[in-house]
């Protein structure tokens, strides 16, 4: 048997004064305790106030995040600028707005929220129901998507190599998981802890996709960013968790540099020490565990990794710490010397950790 766990420490939410006749502390109370209509009003007022004050773009930190206790998504249009969040174009309860990027972002934010709630009983990124905000059409020809500490940001791609970054639901799950990691283990974004941070985002990003498609581990493609490449690129995705190093081989992008074993681990002077490269090793460890445990990957392997993220990993954890932490988590959830614990240990051994 396993148990679903929800973690995340409550954080102080200091909004300060906002441009509104109702004081912010009352708005916050209403946003958490009012009727559905009252909560909607209070949250919208808080969001507008934050926007008017331009504080999100200046501070962008946790202090301005509004907990809702429920799924509450808002998508903004950055209108090809870099000032966030931009113009609001779709909120919770609205019909699709017709902008493919905005509607894709909205759906994927929901799919990510749903995975964390249904599989792990976690309320949003912070486990307090943090509102999920995303801005689309960020900058010009922007080949990226990122979590800025309080919201999601999506580029449209350059059209030559990359399509818009809202096309891939696992990319959105990946980015929101950086927020989860920020609230839990807080893995430093460099070296091995950074590669673990990246890997955890790939793991839960892939689980968002697998749950959306109702797939067993053996049927999943285990690709990250499938669909982002234009037809000009020789490749299927940004990364493969099943076979790191095989996702692309292209004259412009080069060959997928990810190793799937410690023998290929690389000390690099760029990419914060190769966080997007060495993450192939823990990615494959998760894939092997999920395949060994069969069935839906979020029901066993995902529970083990989530437990480790919340309770066994620290900001400076290494791959070796992750191997120990996930094995310990498997023992705590499924029993000492259980087949789940053995599967975790075998998987890390197989990737050389």
């Amino acid at each position, binding site marked *: 048997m396993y148990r679903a766990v929800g973690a995340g420490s409550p954080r102080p939410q200091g909004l300060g004064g906002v441009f509104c006749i109702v004081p912010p502390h009352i708005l916050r109370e209403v946003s958490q305790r009012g009727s559905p209509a009252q909560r909607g009003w209070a949250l919208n007022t808080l969001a507008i106030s934050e926007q008017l004050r331009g504080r999100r773009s200046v501070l962008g930190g946790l202090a301005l995040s509004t907990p809702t206790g429920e799924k509450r998504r808002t998508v903004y249009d950055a209108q090809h600028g870099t000032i966030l969040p931009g113009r609001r174009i779709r909120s919770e309860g609205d019909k699709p707005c017709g902008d493919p990027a905005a509607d894709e972002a909205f759906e994927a934010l929901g799919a990510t929220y749903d995975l964390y709630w249904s599989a792990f009983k976690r309320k949003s990124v912070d486990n307090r129901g943090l509102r999920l905000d995303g801005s689309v059409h960020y900058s010009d020809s922007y080949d990226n998507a990122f979590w800025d500490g309080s919201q999601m940001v999506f580029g449209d791609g350059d059209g030559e*190599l990359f399509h818009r970054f809202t096309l891939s639901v696992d990319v959105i799950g990946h*980015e929101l998981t950086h927020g989860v990691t920020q609230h839990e283990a807080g893995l430093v*974004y460099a070296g091995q802890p950074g590669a673990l941070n990246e890997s955890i985002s790939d793991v839960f990003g892939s689980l968002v996709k697998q749950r959306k498609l109702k797939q067993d581990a053996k049927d999943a493609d285990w690709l990250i960013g499938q669909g*982002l490449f234009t037809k000009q690129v020789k490749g299927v995705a940004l990364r493969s968790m099943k076979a790191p190093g095989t996702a692309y081989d292209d*004259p412009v992008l080069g060959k997928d540099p990810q190793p799937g074993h410690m023998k290929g681990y690389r000390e690099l002077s760029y990419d914060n020490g190769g966080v*997007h490269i060495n993450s192939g090793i823990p990615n494959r460890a998760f894939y092997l565990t999920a395949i060994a445990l069969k069935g839906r990957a979020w029901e066993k392997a995902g529970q083990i990794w989530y437990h480790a993220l919340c309770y066994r990993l620290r900001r400076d954890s290494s791959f070796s710490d992750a191997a120990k932490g996930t094995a310990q988590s498997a023992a705590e959830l499924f029993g000492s010397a259980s087949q789940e614990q053995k599967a975790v240990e075998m998987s890390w051994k197989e990737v050389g950790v």
Partner: protein
Amino acid sequence: MQIEFERSGGITGAVLRLTLPEGSLAKDEADKLQALVEQSRFFELQSSPSAALKPDRFHYRLTIEQGPRQHTVDVDEADAPASLQPLLQALTALARARAHTPRA
């Protein structure tokens, strides 16, 4: 003027690199870059190692050699000064264009 440019990071993890030896650009392109270098006050900028490394943001490393001067700036996208942004965007576009050349 000689330029070495590298953009790493981003969710794709792909590294974009560009080396522009002295005299490798057409005059109008070279003039445009020269103006952006001056506008950014590049040789007065300090590298700004980020206090908190940010997931999936781009990181830039730019080295420019001009006459007796050589200077390198390492900066995260989120921390790059506004004056430097146009130069980073121009070099990104140039690096992309050069990378795509083999397709032609």
